[in-house]
């Protein structure tokens, strides 16, 4: 144990020692919860960005510059995020990462827009890696905002695509949190199902208050008695875990298609009960076929950060895309990098990804996976992990959604 940690430290110091060779430092700020109840969510992503940056630096950095990612704890509070944003900008950061909470992302988009308008020459770019409200790349779209995660409608498109292929699913139950996001998920599901499989009956459309329910058993019993063949939910955090625990406990045995089934602890809390019950949609899972380099990365991550699992593949995508854009632009300044990023395509471990120019929404293939006991990499330090389901690969075009964005670009 001690030996391993020292070895990592030695590696870390050697990276530090090399830093003298860089021309300059590109400062990037990671603004997300790093303490409090949502702390683990932020930390799982933060560690991914740290590792990605280390790899880039070890390969000579970006245009000869070293990348430095600094964490700023926003306590998942929009106002505190703005304070942290000011601190980050003061510290010289010109690139901001954030993902936890659409309210925070909305506040940051607004704040970055205003900052850039009020402080020309000191522009800041916001890389959104997980806030999935569709509006951010539609009516609220901004030149200064790039999203690397598929937004809610895209994920829903993947889910409904998969359902459409399954003739045994005749009825669907929708359950979600009673606020903008949950409502948006429910209406997207309704619309898309009507279009792709008009014969499917929506037997329930339940909204429960956000983060208030302690026992989901009554909801599960409603689902069971409705006779639904599948359940779709956008729940996250405790609402997601408690829902799934209650489902397993009460013998619900239909697929639960989730956005956030991959959140930490969900699989282990269900145990074997999660097999064939919990499904998720993501841009990649560790048990997809990939090259050895990717496997090495997954293993390195697990070794470095034993509390977490390799989950934020898009963090590595975002960094890779940034480096490529900076190289094409021949600069690390925000505006040229942002312009180079528009329409840029990268090849990552699980396929291609393109940053659509019209709305700065990353287009990528999506995967539906479920909990399985026959996997290469488990999660939560147990044997169970995520395995691709049959017909679970949704290609880029199928997931693609139209945009209403009318972007204003600086000249």
């Amino acid at each position, binding site marked *: 144990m001690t030996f391993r940690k020292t070895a990592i430290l030695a590696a870390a110091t050697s990276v530090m020692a090399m830093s003298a060779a860089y021309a300059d430092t590109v400062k990037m700020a990671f603004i997300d919860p790093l303490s409090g109840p949502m702390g683990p969510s932020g930390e799982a992503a933060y560690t991914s960005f740290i590792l990605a940056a280390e790899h880039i630096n070890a390969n000579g950095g970006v245009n000869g510059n070293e990348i430095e990612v600094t964490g700023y704890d926003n306590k998942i509070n929009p*106002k505190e995020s703005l304070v942290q944003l000011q*601190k980050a900008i003061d510290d010289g950061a010109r690139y901001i990462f954030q993902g936890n909470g659409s309210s925070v992302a909305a506040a940051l988009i607004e704040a970055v827009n205003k900052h850039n308008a009020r402080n020309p020459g000191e522009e800041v770019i916001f890389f959104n890696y997980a806030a999935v409200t569709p509006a951010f790349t539609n009516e609220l779209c901004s030149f200064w905002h790039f999203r690397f995660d598929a937004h809610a409608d895209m994920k829903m498109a993947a889910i409904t695509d998969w359902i459409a292929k399954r003739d045994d699913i005749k009825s669907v139950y929708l359950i979600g949190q009673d606020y903008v996001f949950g409502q948006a998920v429910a209406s997207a599901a309704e619309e898309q199902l009507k279009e792709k499989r008009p014969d499917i009956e929506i037997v329930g459309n339940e909204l429960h208050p956000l983060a208030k329910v302690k026992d989901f058993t009554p909801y599960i019993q409603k689902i069971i008695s409705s006779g639904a063949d599948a359940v779709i939910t956008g729940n996250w955090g405790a609402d997601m875990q408690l829902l799934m625990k209650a489902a397993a406990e009460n013998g619900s045995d239909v697929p639960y298609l989730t956005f956030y089934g991959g959140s930490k602890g969900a699989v282990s809390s269900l145990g074997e009960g999660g097999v064939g019950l919990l499904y998720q949609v993501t841009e990649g899972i560790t048990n997809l076929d990939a090259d050895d380099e990717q496997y090495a990365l997954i293993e390195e991550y697990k070794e470095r950060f034993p509390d977490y699992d390799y989950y934020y593949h898009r963090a590595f995508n975002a960094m890779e895309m940034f480096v490529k854009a900076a190289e094409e632009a021949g600069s690390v300044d925000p505006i040229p990098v942002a312009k180079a990023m528009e329409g840029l395509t990268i090849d990552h471990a699980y396929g291609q990804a393109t940053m659509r120019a019209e709305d700065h929404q990353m287009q990528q293939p999506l995967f539906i996976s479920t909990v399985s006991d026959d996997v290469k990499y488990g999660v939560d330090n147990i044997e169970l992990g995520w395995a691709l389901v049959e017909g679970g690969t949704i290609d880029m075009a199928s997931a693609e959604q139209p945009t209403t964005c009318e972007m204003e670009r600086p000249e």
Partner: protein
Amino acid sequence: MTDTTVQDLAPSSAQKFRQRTLPFLILAAILVAIPMTGPSRTFYTIAHQMGINVVFALSYNMILGKGGLLSFGHAVYFGLGGYLAVHAMGWIEEEAGLWGAFPVFFLPIVGFAGGALAGAIIGWPSTRKAGTTFAMISLGVAELIFAAAFMFDSFFGGEQGISGDRMNGTQMFGLSLGPIDDVYWFIAFWMFVGILGMWAFTRTPLGRLSEATRDNAQRVQFIGYNPQKVRYLVFIFAGGFAGLAGGMAAVNYEIFTPDALSLVPSGFVLIMAYVGGIAYFVGPIMGAILLTYMQSMLSDFTEAWLLYLGMLFIVIVMFAPRGLAGIVFGFLDGFRSDDRGAFLKSWFTTLAGGFLMLIGLIILVEVSVRWSNGYGEVYEPFGMHLSHTNPLTWILFLVATVAGIALTYFANRDKEGAA
């Protein structure tokens, strides 16, 4: 009897100047001097938050310290006032009705109105009782309003909240409110107004009566006042000033989200006021400044900042119930007393003891946090390599803690011996 004899009972005008006018002159001088030092943007950002929290904490102390009402839902009035101000900001932008002519600079007045209105409506049933009943009602109301915030999107904007743009409408004092140093004057102005207003309130008959009701509600009844009415009126004002702070926050952040109404900020304002010292007018000001700083800066140094916050709070509750202000004024009193030498000796021994215990605590917490994370990170203060396997860590921890406890013990034994 002549007027002069009557006046003799009141403090002299020199005293009045020293105790009442001078502090405000000093405050104004500080506020004017700050921008001259060329502070950074971060400084401004945190100073603005402090300004808002100072007003918010003082408004909370109107009911806790001066009114004796413990509330777990004060953020409701901050939030509702702030929401109204953000909406007003939107109306200014759209130039709806007469709003087009309303300067953004005066939005805190709208916040005040919103907070006071919410206080008037919610306070009506809840201030009929004091004590624990009031505390419980405030908790229930806060939960209800917070839940409602997610149901009524048109006013609360759901999870994303409502945002606005402060660079609209009529400009006041040549401030566009765009750049952060423009906003500084806005915050400084309203913080000054808020402090002055709430201080003046303590000098009104109602303000004094509020303290009388806190101390002895029964007696107040028998000299002809209705304690419920006193509590209700004070509650409305506290709501109003909380709303004023909300209005300041609305202009500063240009966004309001339902989080602002939740139990978290309500608990935080309680901690700010109590840590600062609820028995003193300046207490909440000190508490707001310290805790805002801790919230924004301490979290950069340690992820266990909430643990330190909890510790600080418990230590204050257990050992210094009069808060930071009590410590400061206690020191000043002791310093002026006849037995200055003995007092200073005991005071500084306690201070040194507390400091040593703090070092012990920090070592324990920081080493534990890193060990618990398991990333192999090591706590390295002043170039020391304090891992959890290093004996030096535990020697330092033990020495600091034991020495700290011993020093505090002796200091207090001396004190008791002297008394």
